């Protein structure tokens, strides 16, 4: 009986998610038909933030570790993409020493590079931060993100506080990427691939161990699970995928802002996860779309839109703890 319910629940969220995916897949032709394709870059941005929020959910929702420093990975991914594109258009190497690293405009090089650098950074930060618990962990990830922020600002070549304007865009497998629709497709495919892979991992033994460590760390340790390594792997993977999202943002905006590294951005990513529903993977994507749409609408309405967003956020925290996706799924199957 319980098993039947469980499959039924999976069925429902699967159906709703599939409908959402159909809507997203239909967006480019429909928008073009309505002559509203100026909205596509905004949607691409939402997809990228959705990817970042879903990646944060691995750590925050499944791992129960409140990382207040994911802006660092988002920004790192964006700056890696920005640096590779910038150096390629100038014909200068990114690094001349100790190894020669030339610039590149190839997305198949840029995306893995952004993920790899952000992942290495996440591994280093995670290795120290995961030695701590609770509030310590929140503050330490925040402080490390600040460290990265100031380090990047210190490099004059990448624009400091002005950010990095990009004059080149990436190519895919040697072919130029023309127009907004292909960028949208790249983001959508990456997001869907991530969601499928992450869902697979979270339902596997590894995911169960990660969730188990959140609920009862001592018990898992007693059972012989390497809790620290399990968490570090989740943190690293999460950082790498957040970096991927940053690279997408850099290409769609043709601009890398140091704001991406700021602690406010880390806070916004957490808001997206909680607003959508933590520990659900799809929820954070919904949260990202909701928050960005709210920001867009409210800022068009009034200059003081934060005065509206703040109370909305407060109400969500106090009253709707399961988030939007949690409500959708939970409402259909109470208990």
């Amino acid at each position, binding site marked *: 009986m319980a098993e039947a319910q469980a499959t039924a629940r999976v069925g429902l969220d699967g159906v709703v998610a599939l409908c959402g995916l159909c809507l997203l897949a239909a967006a480019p032709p429909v928008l073009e038909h309505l002559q509203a394709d100026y909205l596509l870059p905004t949607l691409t941005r939402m997809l990228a933030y959705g990817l970042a929020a879903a990646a944060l959910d691995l750590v*925050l929702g499944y791992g129960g570790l*409140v990382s*207040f420093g994911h802006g660092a990975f988002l920004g790192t991914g964006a700056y890696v993409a920005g640096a590779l594109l910038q150096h390629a258009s100038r014909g200068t190497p990114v690094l001349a020493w100790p190894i020669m690293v030339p610039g590149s405009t190839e997305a198949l090089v840029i995306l893995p590079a952004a993920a790899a650098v952000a992942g290495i950074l996440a591994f280093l930060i995670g290795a*120290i931060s995961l*030695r*701590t618990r*609770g*509030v*310590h962990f*929140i*503050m*330490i990830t*925040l*402080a*490390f993100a*600040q*460290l990265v922020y*100031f*380090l990047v*600002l*210190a*490099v*004059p070549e990448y624009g*400091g506080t002005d950010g990095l304007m990009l004059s080149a865009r990436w190519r895919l497998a040697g072919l130029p990427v023309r127009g907004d629709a292909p960028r949208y497709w790249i983001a959508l495919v990456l997001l869907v691939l991530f969601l499928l892979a992450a869902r697979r991992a979270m339902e596997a033994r590894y995911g169960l161990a990660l969730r188990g460590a959140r609920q009862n760390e001592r018990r898992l340790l007693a059972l012989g699970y390497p809790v620290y390594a399990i968490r570090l792997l989740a943190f690293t993977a999460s950082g790498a995928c957040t970096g991927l999202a940053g690279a997408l943002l850099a290409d769609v905006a043709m601009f890398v802002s140091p704001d991406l590294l700021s*602690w406010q951005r880390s*806070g916004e990513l*957490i*808001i997206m996860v*909680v607003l959508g529903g933590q520990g659900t993977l799809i929820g954070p994507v919904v949260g990202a779309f909701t928050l960005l749409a709210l920001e867009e609408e409210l800022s068009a309405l009034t200059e*003081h839109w*934060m*005065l509206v*967003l*703040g*109370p909305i*956020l*407060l109400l*969500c*925290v*106090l009253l709707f*703890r399961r988030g939007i996706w949690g409500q959708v799924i939970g409402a259909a199957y109470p208990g």
Partner: protein
Amino acid sequence: MDPSLLLEQTLNGLTLGVMLFLLAAGLTLIFGVMDVINLAHGSLYMAGAFASAAVTARTGSFAAGVLAGIAVGAAFALVLELALIRRLYARAHLDQVLATFAVILIANETVKILFGPQPIFAAPPPALAGSVELLPGVPYPAYRLVIIAVGLLAALFLWWLIGRTRLGMLIRAGTTHRCMVQALGVNIEVLFAFVFAIGGALAGLAGAMAGPILAVQVGMGEQILILAFVVVVIGGLGSVRGAFLAALLVGLTDTMSRALLPSLMRDLLPPAAADQVAANLGSVAVYLLMAVVLAVRPRGLFPAHG
């Protein structure tokens, strides 16, 4: 580095250090006693700075301004505790982070509406506007010396309050054995509200004192809040003594690295680039310090919880 410059930079570091202590003491107490992470602590500081600047401009009296800053900081903290934080004690830290993040958004936007987005000008009182000659040929602004003195007095007051009074005994007991204090019949709600008010008053005082040397503007709270977090983490959560030592350590590290790096960098880079690089690398030093301390002692220098 010549001795007079060293003295000057040490005093600058102490100025920053005591300001950080005023903020970090409240944060660490609130965490230690109530297990709450309060991001809006920087908003209390901002409220104190704006209230103080407004009252000083209206009355012409700096002392009245500082008192107003303290009062507004404490009042704001009390309202915050009664209206919001009280509902969050039993919640996860994540909820506390989000709720107080929302408070930051609301507070910043409200101040922007009330005072405008431009920084407002706050002058030190005329009597303290000059400088004092500490050593022959080494003048130092008198107002900064007053900040150091006020900060040390506040530290002394806290030491007396926490170490020598009945209330302080309850605070210490609350930090180490929260359930036991409740079980013994102490009115924990009043104690919590009081600790919050003290934290708010200290933050308001810091804001009021900072006005004349830093820009009074929207978002000023968040810049210093993150440094205060670093102080709290290095000092050990819940430990006022740890916060004091860590605040001075962080203040000195930050100031010294900013003072020393530009001259080092000028040998390596063109001057304009060197200043930008040095200013940002100076900020990095504090976080590196934190990383080193935590790599050795994950719970900080003086952890209060057992």
